[in-house]
């Protein structure tokens, strides 16, 4: 506990140092980036000890009046999330040094960066409603300022406002949830919450938590801020937000679910449904995007959907008396939280590297970057393989566990429960396939082929401050993919915190599954290595020549004749056209000989256009009528205030007598 508090202090010192050294950008950036490594170094040992032993530590200090008591605590769940927060913030901070090198406002950005990390730490260790909400709001505000870094651009300002409003709407649902949870007139410490809750109250709390935390996590109808905020934010901030901050929603959901006691069956169904919708629609919308970072943002929606699917399986297992299903589901979900943090961090950093070198994130304007930026390209490829859930990388491990949990549920539960679970297996499988198509598109168009448009010749790989973090994360993708059996016991202590009945048998079963996965992955790598060796052997005494690919008889192919992102995705996008509502503007040539043609596609967000814009428009129209009250006559304002006060006074006097 002490170490974590010192780490928090280190972050605050680093934040204020960065702000204080505004005039010396270089020093500010160094000091601002030093906060996260220092924090990680200070508390990593203590956190691992908590995680391995499962013994929670707590701190209670009485505090000034409005808060009553400062209650903090670290249990296995907290330390699991803390380790992810700190590790990813170290990597992104390192990257940020290079990324913000030419920015004039880097010191302000570092100030908010450190505050964001600190507030996420407090969110995870808070054990008191007020402390939690305070940290939650600080997290929303600091990330808003980070998103608004390039606030000179109108689009960035608009995106950051959307983000701020979405965050506050989410918090709006958390307040009544905590009111319901708190005992009447009692303390607001987490340990006193949720005792003897009526079933309807527990269920309302759960629904409110799903909405409030789901908004932060980016569950499907609540995800609108993600595809706006991520393209606008600096890339290391998107990496941190997408890798860690949206997981705070997952954390909050798990933490509140812990307070609510035995879940009824329909909670699991709700999560499964939301998870399936998010995963499927997330990947479909990603497929239709043209902006690299927007595409990645939709993949965050997809992956949060997968995590929630895992949690949903866990809840279903808990409430239908199948503990081994629950353990598998929760373990898979938590591992996916970790894995998504790593590979999505990597992908956003890669996208940032491309953006910084070429000054565009439009997929259709890029191409052939693999030769110019080999490190970015190969690490991005690793990230793509991981996010698609291909062995031997880390995404496979967690997705496989979630599959396994679903299949175990199908096999061991009653038919009424098993059939929907079977349907989610199908959803997850198609999500995997679509993700593969999407990243084949993203990687293929951006890094392979020839440069489209006039990509300047001066595109070069970024410096080591930006490539080293990507290499580090890519290595972590592989390492985590191979170390599943080692992770399982640590995650099992976390799962034990969730009131999931952990017995040695279910941990053993999980570990056995993961060992087999690792074994197969290792065998696969050995096979690839063997094939590479054979190829090398066969080629080593022969002459190899590079020649142009067959050009279908057309003698002068140009770079614009390559597949574009839209044309690559077109078959799938058309297949799901009724869901995506892609708008097309096609000027096709009408004669047989080629002439100027034009195709434009745009896939706006379905829930933004279908739900939020009409809703807010209606609210706006309704409120515009209130403008009658804002007439500018001071007298009448005062009169209205007085009349209200008199009415209240009379009411109160009448009440008393």
């Amino acid at each position, binding site marked *: 506990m002490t170490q974590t508090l010192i780490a928090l202090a280190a972050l605050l010192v680093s934040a204020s140092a960065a702000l204080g050294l505004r005039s010396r950008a270089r020093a500010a950036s160094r000091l601002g980036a030093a906060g996260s490594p220092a924090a990680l170094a200070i508390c990593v040992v203590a956190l691992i000890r908590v995680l391995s032993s499962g013994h929670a530590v707590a701190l209670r200090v009485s505090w000034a009046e409005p808060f009553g008591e400062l209650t903090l605590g670290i249990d296995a769940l907290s330390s699991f999330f803390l380790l992810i927060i700190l590790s990813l913030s170290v990597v992104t901070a390192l990257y940020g040094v290079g990324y913000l090198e030419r920015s004039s406002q880097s010191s302000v950005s570092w100030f908010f960066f450190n505050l964001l990390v600190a507030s996420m730490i407090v969110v995870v260790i808070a054990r008191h409603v007020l402390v939690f909400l305070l940290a939650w709001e600080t997290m929303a505000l600091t990330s808003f300022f980070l998103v608004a870094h390039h606030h000179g651009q109108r689009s960035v300002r608009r995106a950051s406002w959307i983000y701020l409003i979405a965050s506050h709407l989410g918090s709006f649902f958390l307040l009544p949830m905590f009111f319901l949870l708190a005992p009447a007139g009692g303390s607001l410490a987490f340990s006193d919450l949720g005792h003897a809750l009526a079933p309807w109250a527990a269920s309302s709390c759960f629904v409110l938590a799903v909405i409030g935390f789901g908004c932060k996590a980016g569950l499907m109808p609540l995800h609108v801020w993600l595809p706006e905020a991520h393209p606008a934010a600096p890339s290391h901030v998107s990496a941190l937000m997408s890798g860690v901050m949206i997981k705070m929603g997952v954390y909050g959901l798990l933490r509140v679910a812990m307070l609510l006691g035995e879940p009824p069956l329909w909670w699991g169904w709700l999560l499964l449904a939301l998870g399936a919708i998010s995963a499927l629609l997330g990947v479909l919308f990603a497929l239709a995007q043209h902006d690299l970072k927007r595409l990645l943002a939709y993949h965050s929606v997809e992956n949060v959907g997968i995590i929630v699917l895992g949690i949903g399986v866990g809840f279903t297992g808990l409430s239908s008396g199948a503990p081994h299903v629950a353990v598998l589901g929760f373990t898979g979900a938590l591992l996916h939280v970790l894995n998504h943090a790593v590979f999505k961090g990597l992908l956003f950093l890669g996208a940032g590297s491309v953006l910084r070198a070429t000054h565009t994130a439009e997929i259709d304007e890029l191409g052939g970057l693999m030769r110019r930026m080999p490190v970015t390209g190969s690490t991005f490829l690793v990230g793509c393989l991981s996010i698609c859930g291909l062995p031997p990388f880390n995404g496979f491990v967690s997705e496989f566990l979630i599959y396994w949990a679903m299949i175990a549920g199908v096999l061991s539960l009653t038919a009424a429960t098993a059939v929907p679970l079977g349907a989610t297996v199908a959803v997850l499988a198609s999500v995997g396939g679509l993700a593969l198509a999407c990243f084949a598109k993203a990687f293929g168009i951006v890094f392979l082929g020839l440069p489209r448009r006039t990509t300047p010749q001066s595109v070069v790989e970024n410096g080591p401050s930006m490539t080293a973090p990507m290499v580090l994360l890519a290595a972590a993708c592989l390492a985590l993919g191979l170390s599943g059996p080692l992770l399982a016991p640590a995650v099992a202590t976390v799962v034990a915190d969730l009131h999931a009945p952990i017995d040695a048998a279910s941990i053993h079963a999980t570990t056995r599954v993961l060992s087999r996965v690792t074994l197969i992955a290792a065998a696969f790598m050995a096979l690839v290595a063997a094939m590479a060796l054979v190829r090398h052997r066969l080629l080593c005494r022969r002459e190899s020549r590079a020649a142009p690919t067959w050009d279908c008889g057309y003698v002068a192919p140009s770079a614009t004749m390559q597949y574009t992102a839209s044309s690559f995705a077109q078959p799938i996008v058309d297949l799901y056209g009724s869901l995506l509502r892609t708008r097309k503007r096609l000027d096709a040539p009408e004669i047989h000989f080629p002439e100027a043609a034009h195709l434009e596609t745009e896939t706006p967000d379905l829930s933004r256009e279908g739900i939020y814009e009409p809703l807010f428009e209606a609210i706006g129209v309704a409120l515009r009528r209130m*403008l009658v009250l*804002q*007439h*500018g*006559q*001071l*007298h*009448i304002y*005062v*009169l209205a205030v*007085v009349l209200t006060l008199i009415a209240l*006074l009379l009411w109160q*006097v009448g009440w*008393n*007598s």
Partner: protein
Amino acid sequence: MMDGVVDRLMVLLILSDVALLGMSRLGAVIGLAALQGALLGGLALSASGETSRAVLLAAVGLSVRGLLFPWLLRRTARRAGVQRDLEPFVGYALSLLIGIVMLGASMALGARLPLGRAGVSNLVVPAALFTMFTGVFLIVARRKALTQCVGYLVLENGIYGFGAASVGEIPLLVELGALLDLFVAVLVMGVAVYRITAEFDHMDTQRLDALRG
């Protein structure tokens, strides 16, 4: 004996309120507000016994309400060159009628509100309420910014009297804080009124509505 003094002060306070409602000359209006300040200083003195603290507070209140504010307001009026609040939203005769209604309401409310300490005249709460109502009425019904400023002053006088009646000894900090607030308000409004007049050649608040949405 003590009660008699307080009663008389309260009657004077009510009369000054009525006079405020019927006056159009700014000089007289400011003078009446100053008189109220003096009356309230007396009330504070008699309500809280003659300890040195009470005397000091009453003296500060008296000098600020009775001397400083009127001086500031008179200066503003002189600079802005206004003497009367012509064409108020609510005419003077109607104002007096409404004043009678407000007095009745204050009496009724004062009887029903469980306030007023034992041993203090039961005229204090109605008189304070009536002063507050008068202040608010001046803000709502008069056109000139300066009269509205006096309205705030009268409103605060009522609040002060109310506090003196129900709490007795107002804590020093609260009292000083309220006075400081009011001082700043009067000063700022004085400057604002002067600027408005200098800029637009009038201080008619009805024409300050350009900022609405």
